[in-house]
């Protein structure tokens, strides 16, 4: 009886000791290791090339692309809330699309972030061209390319060409041919740009793309209202 009690006591002591040791470990970790958030930029510098990861994926390329996609979203979200610097974003989207060449949303989101937030229009267009090479039947990629040409580069001729191409691809919605006509007739007008942003906001399921598009549309609307006001004032004078 005494030995059974002694055993129980010894076990209880061991459990307490284990908990204390683990608690100590957690304390050390929270004191020294957490809060030392490594800059996501530095972290992503070690992302290997897409070709290398694809070769070593052993048939799990698509699942690895998803993991990289989740990392890319975290990276973008973190920088969007802090310094708005997106140094490694092009590399990460290149890795994702090399692992899963049919991942259309990765091309589109990558291009929006690169062209609108990172100011890397050439990289955005390269990513979209890679997408079109891998998915020649996808209307969305051609539309997005036209969009970048229109909004960022103000190259209305190229934009019209891509909008027309998009409208001719299978399953393209009606608005692609509408924009092709718009750009031909009303290139450079803020109404066309506003309509384009509104269309992007309505068509996208991606929270961040929606936010960017709505933000830009609001800005444009405010600018247009200001210009209208100024014109009215000039007329009344």
């Amino acid at each position: 009886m005494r030995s059974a009690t002694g055993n129980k006591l010894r076990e209880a002591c061991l459990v307490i000791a284990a908990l204390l040791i683990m608690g100590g470990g957690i304390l050390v970790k929270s004191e020294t290791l957490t809060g030392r958030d490594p800059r996501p930029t530095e972290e992503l510098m070690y992302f290997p090339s897409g070709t290398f990861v694809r070769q070593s994926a052993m048939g799990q390329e698509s699942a690895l692309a998803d993991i990289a996609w989740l990392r890319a979203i975290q990276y973008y979200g973190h920088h969007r809330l802090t310094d708005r610097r997106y140094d490694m974003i092009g590399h990460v989207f290149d890795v994702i699309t090399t692992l899963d060449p049919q991942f259309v949303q990765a091309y589109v989101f990558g291009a929006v972030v690169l062209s609108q937030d990172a100011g890397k229009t050439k990289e955005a267009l390269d990513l979209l061209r890679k997408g079109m090479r891998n998915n020649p039947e996808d209307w969305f990629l051609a539309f997005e390319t036209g969009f970048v040409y229109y909004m960022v580069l103000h190259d209305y001729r190229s934009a019209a060409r891509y909008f027309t191409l998009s409208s001719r691809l299978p399953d393209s919605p009606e608005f692609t041919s509408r924009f092709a006509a718009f750009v031909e007739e009303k290139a450079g007008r803020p109404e066309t740009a506003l309509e384009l942003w509104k269309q992007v906001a309505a068509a996208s399921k991606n929270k961040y793309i929606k936010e960017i598009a709505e933000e830009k549309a609001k800005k444009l609307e405010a600018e247009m209202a200001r210009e209208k006001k100024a014109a009215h004032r000039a007329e009344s004078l």
Partner: protein
Amino acid sequence: MRVVAIARNTFREALRDKSLYVLIVFSLVLVLGTRVMSPLALGEGIKITKDIGLSAISFFGMLAIIVMAAGLVHKEIDKRTIFVILSKPVARHEFIIGKFLGMADALVAIVIVMLFTLQLTLLASRAGFDVLVLKAGFLTYIELLVMTSIAVLFSSFSTTALSAIFTFCFYVVGHFSGDVLVFASRLPSAFAQHVCRFLYYVLPDLQVFNVRSMAVHGTDISAERILAATAYGLLYSIGVLILAAVLFSRRDFK
């Protein structure tokens, strides 16, 4: 009949193995966990569920083979139960075939449970029942059959640990066999080219069974593709099993 009895016994033995349940639980948690990650995926939650679900079938199926099939024959030798079996009117090739079929049955159970959970998760996410996922799951099962036959082959003449290592090496190489052919075309020596081509045909080409990306992106997987891959997988497995039976029948048990 004797083959069926050995297969049934192997299947029962596999079901008694606790590591099988650990693997199944892990994969189910992984599939269900993708629904938790879904809000972070910016509208790509369904894609991630399908990708991770199909990859889990392939990966955990392969782990099950390494854990269980790699020791299928050697365990019997180690425990000396092989003497009891072979002292009865059981041919050695029947023993090998029975072991393979028993493990194949256990793998059917694993794949069905995982596919069922994946489809349920998709239904719960309002993505609907996906036939393409079933097709990809079926070809993954054929891939697992090929790997099981290879595990049985190694198990028939080496230890459990070595069989597991060799089987895993074949799994890795099986995903690179296409590259061997590309490599061959760039070699200057004609002899080296022939060696590479020979290796390309001898090693299993596991990428033939990988239609997971097609299933996830909604690209149709044709019946011809499924039939051709199934025929390749079954013929390859039969070839490997014949080899295993020949090697096993040459073994001298003392």
